[in-house]
C-alpha cells in the first residue's frame, strides 16, 4: 500500500464520518459545520486525484460561498425544534436506510463485476494553465451558457427576496 493509498483511505474515512454526522444532527447549524469539514476533505481528495484547480474551487465555492449562504439563512429564519418523537424520526429514516443499503449492495456488485474498475489510478495532475486552455478551447459555449444560468439565478433570487412592504397601488416604482 503506497502513501497515496493511505492518504486516500484516511480522507475517505474523514469524508464519510463527517457527512454521516452532518445528516443526523438535529440542529442545522451543527450540520453545516460538519459539512464544511466534509467539503474540505473532499477538496483534498480532488487534489489527490489530480485536480488542484477544482480543489481550490471546492474550498471557495462549496465550503466558502454555499455554506456561508446556508449559515446566513439559518441566522435569518426562526429556529424550529424538531417535532415528533424518537420513534417517528426512526420511522422516517428506516425506509431511506433500507433502500440505501440495497442500492449500495447492487452498486458494489456492479463495480466489482464491471471490468476496468480494478485498474489502479496512476497519479497525474492537470495544471490550472492546461485546464484553462482546454476549457476555453473546447467548451467555450457551455461556459457562456453557464454564465447565463448564473445570471438567471441572480435575477430569480433578487425577485424572490424583494420586500413586499409597498401597497398594491403603486406598481411603477422600481426600488424596493
Amino acid at each position, binding site marked *: 500500500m*503506497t502513501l497515496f493509498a493511505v492518504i486516500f483511505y484516511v480522507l*475517505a474515512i474523514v*469524508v*464519510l464520518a463527517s*457527512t*454521516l454526522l*452532518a*445528516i443526523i444532527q438535529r440542529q*442545522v447549524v451543527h*450540520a453545516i459545520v460538519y*459539512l464544511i469539514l*466534509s467539503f474540505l476533505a*473532499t477538496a483534498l*481528495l*480532488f487534489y*489527490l*486525484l*489530480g*485536480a488542484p*484547480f*477544482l480543489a481550490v*474551487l*471546492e474550498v471557495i*465555492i*462549496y465550503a466558502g460561498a*454555499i455554506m456561508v*449562504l446556508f449559515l446566513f439563512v439559518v441566522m435569518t*429564519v*426562526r429556529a*424550529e425544534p424538531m*417535532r415528533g418523537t424518537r420513534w417517528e424520526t426512526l420511522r*422516517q*429514516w428506516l*425506509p*431511506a436506510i433500507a433502500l*440505501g443499503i440495497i*442500492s449500495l449492495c447492487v*452498486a458494489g456488485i456492479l*463495480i466489482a463485476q464491471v471490468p476496468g*474498475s*480494478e*485498474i*489502479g*489510478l*496512476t*497519479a*497525474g495532475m492537470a495544471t490550472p494553465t*492546461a485546464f484553462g486552455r*482546454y*476549457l476555453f478551447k*473546447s467548451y467555450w459555449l457551455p461556459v457562456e451558457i*453557464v454564465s447565463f*444560468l*448564473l445570471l*438567471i*439565478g*441572480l435575477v*430569480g433570487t433578487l425577485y*424572490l*427576496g424583494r420586500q413586499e412592504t409597498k401597497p398594491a397601488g403603486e406598481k411603477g416604482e422600481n426600488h424596493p
Partner: protein
Amino acid sequence: MIVPYGNVLLLAVILFLMGAACAVARRNLLMILIGVEIMLNAAGLAFVAASLKWQGMDGQVFVLFIFAVAASEVAVGLALIVYSQRRTGSMNADDYNRMRG
C-alpha cells in the same frame, strides 16, 4: 498508483446515498437542500476520478459546470425557502400541504 478506480467509485456511491437519505428522511427544508448538495458533491468526486482514469480533462470541466449549477441552485433554493417561510411561517416540509396561494 493511488487506489483502484472501483474504490473511488464506491466512495462516491456511499456519499451519494447518504445525501439521498438525508434529502428523503429529513423534514427540514434546509436539510433537504443540504442533502442535494451532498449528492452533487459525490457526483463531482466520481467525475474527477473518471477524469484521472481516462487521462483527460473533460471530467474536470464537467465538475466545473456542476459547481456553477450547484451555486445557482442553492441561491434560488434558499431564496425560495426564505420566501415560503415568510409566507407560511414554517420550515417543516409536512406543513406545505394546503395549496393556497
